[in-house]
Structure formats: C-alpha cells, structure tokens
C-alpha cells in the first residue's frame, strides 16, 4: 500500500451489498479501524475491502448512516437523535458490539 491510503473503503455485508464509505467515517468503528490499520498488514488493510460476514445489508446500511452521523456530530452538542426503526434495534446493538462503535 502507498503511504497515504485511499480515502474511501468498501464495507461488504454478508448478503453481498457493498457500501463505499470514507475512511474517516469507517474508522469511527473501532473494529474497522484496527482492520484497516496500515501498520498491520492484514488482507483488509492492503485491499481496503472489509467483509463483514456477521452483518446483513439492511443493518449495515443503518450502521453506515450512523458512522457518518457520528462523524458529523463528533464535536457538536444538542445533537438530534437518529431515526432507528425498532425492528432493527437488536441487530444493530449486536453489530455495534461487534464493530466496537
């Protein structure tokens, strides 16, 4: 990999959806951050593609939304709550635990 890694990475859900997100947003999630850490030369770090086989497309979409939401409001106060459909709650919680968000 070059010294400056590409600014966008691809997150892939277990059902094959690919989400192309900015590296900054992706790195909000602790697990993805480590995954992409250029010093440890894992497969994901070299290719910039992360297979997240525990998360399906719907959830991952919401996760990506949250990643950007978090990035945007990082230093802001009085942030409005994000819209979460109740049926996704549990799965999102598990994904959050897995991704260390």
């Amino acid at each position, binding site marked *: 990999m070059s010294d400056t890694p590409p600014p966008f990475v691809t997150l892939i859900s277990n059902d094959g959806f690919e989400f192309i997100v900015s590296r900054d947003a992706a790195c909000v999630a*602790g*697990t993805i951050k*480590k*995954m992409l*850490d250029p*010093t*440890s*030369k*894992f*497969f*994901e*770090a*070299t290719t910039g593609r*992360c*297979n*997240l*086989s*525990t998360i*399906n497309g719907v959830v991952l979409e919401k996760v990506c939304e*949250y990643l950007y939401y978090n990035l945007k409001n990082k230093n802001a106060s009085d942030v409005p*709550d*994000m819209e*979460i*459909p*109740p*049926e996704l*709650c*549990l*799965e*999102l*919680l*598990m994904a*959050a635990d*897995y991704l*260390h*968000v």
Partner: protein
Amino acid sequence: MLAGRGRNKIRPPRRGLGTGDAVDFDSMWQVLEASLREIHTKNASKLSFEEQYRNAYKLVLKKRGETLYERVKDFEERWLTNEVRPRIIAVAAPVLSLFDTTSSTIATVNEKRLAGERLLRALKQAWEDHNLCMSMTTDVLMYMDRVYCKDFRKPSIFTASMGQFRDCVLRTPVHADNQVSVSQVLNAVILDQVRMDREGDMIDKSLLKSCVYMLEGLYETEEEEEHLKLYLTSFEPEFLRASEEFYRNEGSTLLLDADAGTFCRHAKKRVSEEEDRCRSTLSPLTLRKIKTVVETELIKNHLREVIALEGSGVKYMLDNDRTSDLAMIFDLSARVDPQKTELKKAVQSRIVEQGTDVNNATVAATQAPAKPSAPTGDKADSEDKAPEKPINLQTNAAIGWVDGVLRLKDKYDNFLTEAFQSDQGLQTALTRSFTDFINAFERLSEFVSLFFDENMKKGIKGKTENEVDALLDKGITLLRYIQDKDMFERYYKKHLSRRLLMKRSISMDAERQMISKMKMEVGNTFTQRIEAMFRDMAVSVDLTSQYKRHVAQLGDPDPQRADIEVNVLTSTMWPLEAMAPSYNEGEDRPRCNFPPQIERVKQGFEKFYLDKHSGRKLTWQANMGTADLRAYFHEMKGKKTRELNVSTYAMIILLLFNDLPPGQFLSCEEIQAQTNIPINELTRNLQSLAVASKTQVLTKKPMSKDVKLSDKFYFNEQFYSQFQRVKIGVVTSGNRVEDPIERSETEKKNNDTRAGSIEAAIVRIMKQRKELNHQKLIAEVIQQLTARFKPDINMVKKRIESLIEREYLERIDDTEPAAYRYLA
C-alpha cells in the same frame, strides 16, 4: 447506539449468532493459531482480519474466553522461548564472555563494542518484532480484551505478552549454569556504551535509545505501575552507580592536573552533556537523578578544593578579574548549595585580606614618614620643608586609603553583578566583610571625612554634576559601612567648619548635596548640627551686609577704617574646641590684643550685634580669621604695593611693624607681649611669615627653621613676589590627619559624647519600661544606638552604675538576673 423511540415490538434478530451454530472451539483455535503464527512470521497480508476477529469474537461469546486467553499466552510463551530466546542468547553469550574476562584475555575495546552493539541490535530487533506482532494480535483479539479481560480483570493480552517477553527473554540466564541474565548483560553493554560516549567515542545513540525504550516499556508487574518500569528498577540504579564512580574518579584526577577554571568549565560541560544524554539517549526520567549524581560527585565533593585551589582558585580569579570563571563557579555552587557557603567564605576572606592590605599599606604610609619627622627638630636645616611633608603624605595616605577601599568595592560590586547574578546572600556577605575590614581600620572616620574634605576643596573642581554626584555616592557607600558614625560626624564637622570659615569649599551646592545624601543614609539627627552650621554661615552673610549698611548710615567716613566680615557661629553647633585644639576646656581663653584700628571696628560690630540680639555673648576667634593687607615695599621694582592675604594673627603681627622705623626689629618675646597671641599660634604665624621661602615678608635672625622666643624679626624690604596678591598660609592650617595626641584627644571627647548618649538612651528606655533586667536593657541600648555607633558594653555598664549613683535608677533586690527600676 441510540435506542428507538417507538414502543413497537422488537423483532428478534433474523439469525442468532450466539445460539445458531455450535462453535467448535478446537477447530477455530487451530485456525487462529495458524494465523497467529503467520503474524509472527510476518505473513499477515494473506490473512483476513475480519475472519480472525470473527473467530475470536465467537469464542468469547461462547464463554470460551478464558481458554482462548490461556491458549494465546501459551502460544506466545512457546514462541518466545523457542524462537526468540536462542537468537538473543546467541549474541549475548559472546558479550558476556568478553565482559567477564576483560582482565584475563585481551579483548580489544573494539571487539567489545562490536559484540555489545550486536546484542543491542538483536534485542532491538526482537523487541520491535514482538511489539508489532503483539499489537496485531491484540487487534485481532480486541473483542477478547474488551469483554473477557475487562470482566475478569485480567491484564490485556498485550500486557501479558510483554511480561512474557520480560520473563522469557530478558530474565533468562545466558548460560544455564550461571545467574547472569540477559538483562544484566544488556545493562552492562549500555553502561559500557555510555562510558565510551563520556570518553568521547562515537556510539550509536539511536540504537541505545531504542533499547532504553524497551526497558521503559516493560514493567515489573502486570499492573504496569509507573514506578515499576524495568528501566527504573533494573537499569537506572546501575547507571547511577556507574556514573557516580566515573565522576568520582574524574573529579579527583581533574583536580590533580587542572586549574580551577578548567575544572569548572569541565564540570559545567559534563552536566550539560548528561542532560543531553538523558534527552537523546537515555530516558528523561533520569535527568534529575543523574544531574544530582554529577553535581554531588563532581561539584559538591570537590568544590571546596576547587575554590581553595592554589594559583587558580577563587582567589586567583578575584585577583585577575576572571569574571566568566567566577560566574561559572557561582553557577556550580548555586547548583549544589543554595547558600553557596564555600564561595561566600572564599570571597569574604579574600576581601578581608585585600582590605587588610589596604589598611596596612596606609598604616605603613602614615608611619614611614612619621619617623623621620620626629628628629627633624634637631637637624632642621638638613631637611627642607620637612614638617610639611608627613602631613601631606598622611593626607595623601588617607585619600589613598579611601580610594583603595572604593576600588575594592567597585571591583566586588562588579563581580556581584557580572558573575554572581546579584545574589542576595553573597551581597550580604560582601557587605559584612567590607564592614569588617573597614571598621578594623581605626582611623576610618577621620580618613573618610578627609576624603570628602579633599574632594570638596579640590577634587570636584571642573567636574560635571553627575561626576560629583557619583563621587559623593561613593563616599556615602563608605559611610554606610562605618559603625562609629558619631566619630565620623565629629571629624566631618571639624573639617567642614574649616572649609566654611576659610572659604575653601569649591561648591556650596556640592556641600548641600552631600548633606542631603547623608541625611538619607543616616537620618535626620545626624545632619541637624551640620545643617545648623550652614545656617550660621548664611545668617552671618546677612549680618555682615546689614552691618556695612549700618556703618554707612552712621556716616563715619574714616578712610583708614578696615572692612570687616564676621561669621557668627552658634557655639554648641560648631566644633570650636577642634578649631583651637591647644586649649583645655576649663582654661580661660587668653584674649589677644587687636591693634587699635581693628579694635575699633570690632567694638563697633559688637555694639551693633548686641543691640540686635541682647543677652548673647560674642567671643572672637581670632585664630580662624583671615585678613587682606595692602603692603608697601620700598625696594620693589615696578609697582611697589602688594596685597597680602594673611591670617588674623599674622595681620596683627604685621601691623606692629607699621609703627616701627625701618631697620628696627621686634623679638618674638616682644611680639608676644604686645599682642598676647598664644605662643604656639604665634610661632606658627611667624614661621609662615619669616621662614617659608616664598612668603618672607619678615626676616628672622638667626635664620633657622624654628622660632625661639629670643629670635629677632625685621621687616623684609627686599621682599619680592611676581604676583600682585600674595597668600600667606599659616603652616598646618589645612585639614590633615591628626597626630596621635590630637587623635587620643578626639577619641576622649568622642567617648564623653558617647557616654552622654548612652545615658540618655538608658533613661529613655527606663522611663518607658519602669523595670527591666540587665540583659534586656543592654540589648535595647545597643539597638537604639547602633545607628550612630557601636556602644561598648563596659561603657554601658559604667553608665548604668553612674545613673544608679545619681539615683536615676535603683537595683531591684533579690532578682536573678539583675534588674533595675526607674526612679522618677
């Protein structure tokens, strides 16, 4: 994540991770173990982080975290023991043998160094690898660290593996049979490298630094407490010990073959070197400690010797103005001893030495000519002007002394600001030593006053206001050191009165400035009398002009009438006894007979004055005045008149010759009888009129230096002077150093005054306190009087006795310690 707002039914996840598929621990571990191995052999790029992470994640979710943790630890330990340790030991062993056997085999420095560097490099490599691998492993096992380790309060896998590195690599003995561990060898190597660096060899600092980093990154326990870093526990003490030894040796060798300046420069260099080393090579944690070591070993333990070093120590520096060296010494002393005792002592003793030199030189200068002056009475003709010489010499000596002291003071003030950073402690030390040696010189009050006198009379001529100011300030600094200020006041008044009455002072402004300066320095009471003297002078000027107007109004057109200028002096303020030292106080002052024309004027003034101020008494001090005469010399070429400026007595004498037919003479006895001038004044005036070569208005027979009662005096018709105005000074009328008799008299008088002030102080205190014990009374008296002089305790005791006798005080019976009561 944020919870949803609705209270809708929450659907179960579509596919449960924890319950769905049974996880086979062993197969998953095998996958993990394989990938860990890949990581350690640096083949991670083929691995999917996500896969490893997911495996670990699942295992932890399955509550197999503990097993996983133990397995990973196991794996690491095996890896370190089997793969890393042999490599390290392979390079450590030769180093150990080299270090062990330095005495027997000839291991060249180079060999040792190379072996050492090999070990360092290998360790650095191993450490970096281990760090990298472990950080990757930790990343993969992040979920385990986060969930399992936190819940069960286990050290994270990273910390645990660091501990393993410490145990398996650093703490293993190099040889199975002896106890020397790798870390000990490492310490020895690092110390060796540091030693080489100190001796000026080049070393690989970054290599050293990374090894130190390793030691800093490792801890004694798994808790990673800050003070239990391996660096602090194992390396640092060794390092400090070695440094101590190094600097102790260096200090003693340096002391043997270097001078103080070099030593200081070296010590300073060493300190900054060590600071640099701590920053660039070792850990900043050691900075303070190693500095202390260097300071103690190199500076503190040797400072005394350095300061005292013969031929180059502080003494030498002070003598040769080595300001930068002194600044260095100061800096070093300040490091180890905030009081700077040693330096202070050295400087003080040097000041006192030099001060004593100045004192002795002056004493020698005043005594050397004093001896030949003693026998001059017998062989007067052999030495021309001998009586004047010692006087001038002594005055010069006095001024020389003041100059010497001032030079010394300037010099040390300079050192203080340039080298000693105006340090408070040193300043007081300097002041104290100056006070010591200045006060050790017994004639200081007189000399300082003479210094002022000389400057007022001559010194400040042609100087700008600022220069005068600086000069006076210098004098004032000396005054500050004087303990017996009353002595100084006495002399100053005496000298001042001469200046004022004889109009010898160049600038009245300077005089006033001086007084205001003294006032600031010593206080109001001190200058009160001196100011009164000035007031008298001003009043007298007014009075004289008033009198002249008065005379003009009287309309007494006597062409023969002499003009008069009178200074009316308040007798208590002026040191009259000092001006006419030959009378004892009780004795009645003999009145001299003024010639009639003068007597008339005198009476006129007396009448005028007593009309204005009734009840006052005027005493005429003929010995202080001067007179202008116009004399007519028959034999002189050109203009035959000359104006003579003479003392009052000389005027009286010369007027006698007015009535004398030419060629006649008066004997000394006759003059005395006619004028009633005291005999010693008479001889002095006759001397200046008849003996001094340029002002021989009279001739004397026989021609000799001394005036005897039987000597005959003629008016000198052959007198010639190229000047229109001739000033005939009276011998020894100027301010000069006192001879021993005068001195003892002054001292006696001063002691009398002191007795008075002491009694006054005692009475003041006792009046206030009513009862007081002896010690306290003495302490208070001394405290009250130190501004003016340093009272002698015996004198205070005598004064108390005398007050008791006179029933101002009484002893309180049966008290221990003795106490007194004030009797109103």
